[in-house]
């Protein structure tokens, strides 16, 4: 087990270094940061001075090494655009994104699990057919369309919920949360719904298929032969067997949500990492984009690492195969 775990760890670190190099390369080719830093009428001398100050004239490898050296020392650099430390910018924005991701995960569980079970147990009922039909829309409609439609209905037409922003936030010192105020809770509803539509549809379909398959398996047949009630069979014996893939998928989806909430955050002016990323791209703010990409890469790697490390616990055959 130890050898397996350390092997995975080394791999993860290696991939992280490669990710940071690729991220740096991509970003250094993204655009001219001077366009947003200098005015159209600045002189050639101004430009030359700025290029020198930002070390843009040095070879890419030198720049990467100094960037990577800074990373190792915990120095993430200063944003070109806002002149603020990148670490601070990201730390300020992270809570908004994490809270949005968790809220959308909560909605996913709340809606998709009961709906999925219903569709799996009673696949022929009218309600199940309606849910399945609706879930097609959830899978196919792009995020921003859902977001704009929600704003049109709940903010403009009904005036119930705010169309943008995060409401009042409370500073806990290490974390600025919007979940403790009424305006903050109201503000998170629409973006969380918009972000969860795809997950909801996916989980419903996943659970349904799994349940239908498990329903035909031997242990369910024997349970039925023993005369157990339908409820007990489905909710205790069958459902437990279907949850494993669902949980794995939701874990990975959480990474996805944090990384790719860019569109939803943009639509709702949600002040999270996604908005920061877009603003940085517009200004070719290279330090922020590099760190963001590396951070997202690291997050996926860590989630993946946990998933892989959990395999032997779920299925001991993984270890035996290695040996």
């Amino acid at each position: 087990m130890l050898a397996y775990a350390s092997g995975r760890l080394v791999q993860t670190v290696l991939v992280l270094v490669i990710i940071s190099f690729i991220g740096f390369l991509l970003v250094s080719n993204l655009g001219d940061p001077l366009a947003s830093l200098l005015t159209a009428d600045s002189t050639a001398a101004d430009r030359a001075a700025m290029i020198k100050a930002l070390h843009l004239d040095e070879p890419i490898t030198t720049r990467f090494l100094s960037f990577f050296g800074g990373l190792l020392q915990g120095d993430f650099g200063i944003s070109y655009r806002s002149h603020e430390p990148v670490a601070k910018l990201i730390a300020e924005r992270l809570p908004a994104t994490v809270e949005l991701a968790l809220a959308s995960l909560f909605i996913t569980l709340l809606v998709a699990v009961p709906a999925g079970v219903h569709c799996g147990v009673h696949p022929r009922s009218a309600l199940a057919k309606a849910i399945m039909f609706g879930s097609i829309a959830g899978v196919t409609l792009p995020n921003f369309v859902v977001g704009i439609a929600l704003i049109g209905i709940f903010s403009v037409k009904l005036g119930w919920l705010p169309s943008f922003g995060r409401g009042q936030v409370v500073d806990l010192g290490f974390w600025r949360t919007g979940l403790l105020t009424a305006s903050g809770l109201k503000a998170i509803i629409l973006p969380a719904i918009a972000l969860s539509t795809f997950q909801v549809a996916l989980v419903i379909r996943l659970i349904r298929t799994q349940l239908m398959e498990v329903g035909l398996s031997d242990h369910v047949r024997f349970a039925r032969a023993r005369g157990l009630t339908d409820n007990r069979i489905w909710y205790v014996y069958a459902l437990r067997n279907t949850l494993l893939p669902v949980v794995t998928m939701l874990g990975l989806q959480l990474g996805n949500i944090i990384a790719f909430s860019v569109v939803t955050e943009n639509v709702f002016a949600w002040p999270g990492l996604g908005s920061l990323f877009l603003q940085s791209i517009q200004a070719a703010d290279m330090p922020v984009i590099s760190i963001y990409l590396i951070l997202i890469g690291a997050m996926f790697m860590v989630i993946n690492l946990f998933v892989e490390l959990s395999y032997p616990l779920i299925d001991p055959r993984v270890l035996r195969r290695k040996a």
Partner: protein
Amino acid sequence: MSRSSFAKVAAVGGVLCASLLAGVSAQAASFKFAGPLDAYTLDPHAVSNTLIFAILSNVYEPLVRRGADLKIEPALATSWKQIDDGWRFELRKGVKFADGSDFNADDVVFSFNRAKAGGVKSNLATIASAVKVDDYTVDLKTTGIDPIVPFEIVNWFIMDKEWSEKNNTVQPGSADNKTETFANRNVNGTGPYRIASRDPGVKIEFEKNPTWWDKLTGNVDKATFFVIPNNATRVSALISGEVDMIDSLPAQDTQRVAADPNLKVQAGPDLRTVYIQPDVARDELQFSDVKGKNPFKDIRVRQAMQLAIDIEGIKQKVMRGYSVPVGLPIAKEVNGFDPVLGEPTKPDVDKAKALMAEAGYKDGFAVTLDCTNDRFMGDEATCLAIAQSLARINIKVEPRAQTTGKWAQQINPPGYNTSLAMLGYSPSTYDAHLFLSSIVATRDPKSGRGTFNIGGFSDEKLDDLITKIQNEKDPTARNALLKQAMTRLKETAGFIPLHQLNILWGVKKNVDVVQPADLGFPLRYYVVK
């Protein structure tokens, strides 16, 4: 509590009540507005950027400011006059910064040196030094003769010397700083408002400065600026009533806003003027099918292009009426604009075809047009429309629309890797000379002239005129020279002017806002009824 101190408290209480009552009678109001981007920084000397100036001009003040009608008026200086080697400014007495310290000549000299070390230095290029004459008099010494110094310093904001020294922010913020400067997030100005709080990229809250030396024309005592990047959401926030005004109203939403009984569209001229500039410097174009020669070197080709572009059609179809076609690459509000020369060119395809045939390009040629897709209203669509227009004279234009960052990397110095580019410019001085010296003059790395002459245009007569204008003290003679330069600019056809943009705001009907052409938000004039 002793009797006398109780009396004092009672007296203060009375004053408070009185001022509260006064506040009620003036109907102090709060105002919420939203735009697509946030000011990058609150440091007034770090970056030269219109949005930063728009936000900060509510907090910091220059010596000389622009009024609601864009005319120059006294701010921290009460009067000014030209002296032998520059300009002398008499400063306003009794002005206090938000932290209570006094404003005087030391602050002006300090702010000059600070600005000269920061990103705004190009706005002060002709000013060599600031010299304190006495506590309330300052001389700005110019490198040569500069008759338009008051126009050049409207975005140069004055900071407090003591505050900056105390907070270790003597150096302006810049991208290569290893640490964040204090002034990046904190302000201490003399202006009509203070910043109560700011969440970068999210919102800025303003509150009235009770000790401001001047009087508010409007009644806004609290204002909040929200950043809402998505166009559809910004419009929704206005329609749902969450904000009172939005900047950058998309043209396609103007009808929807105008149809709403509580809202109005406020459109006004923007100083930014859009033009296209062909590469006339290279002997062979980089992005064209013509080999061994450069068709744009032939003035007839450039004239034909101007004649073929249907700028009125672009106004109607692409800009939905929200643009002002112009015949010069500068805006009507800019000093040096001439109404006769500035008359937009009438399209004449037959004449254009004849010119093309004369130049030997009857069958046309192909060329790539570089343009942005996120910089201003309808930029990409305008590019496509130009391509259609020029197809009529057999010039096959391939538009290459990119984000501003990519586009700038493509066309900007030192590479200038473009054959034809769509550009937009607004001179911060409201004077055509800045356009001429930075964009029309022959590229000269030494003097810094013509750095943004993307097409490498070069004309001796114009270069002479630009030098003469720079050195002319007398305003009448100077304007005559500007007119000569504009005439020459038009006949050489090195720049093909398209239109002046419009600023588009969606505003609630119960709000009166002033919308200056320099893209500012002067909250001091705003009235909420």
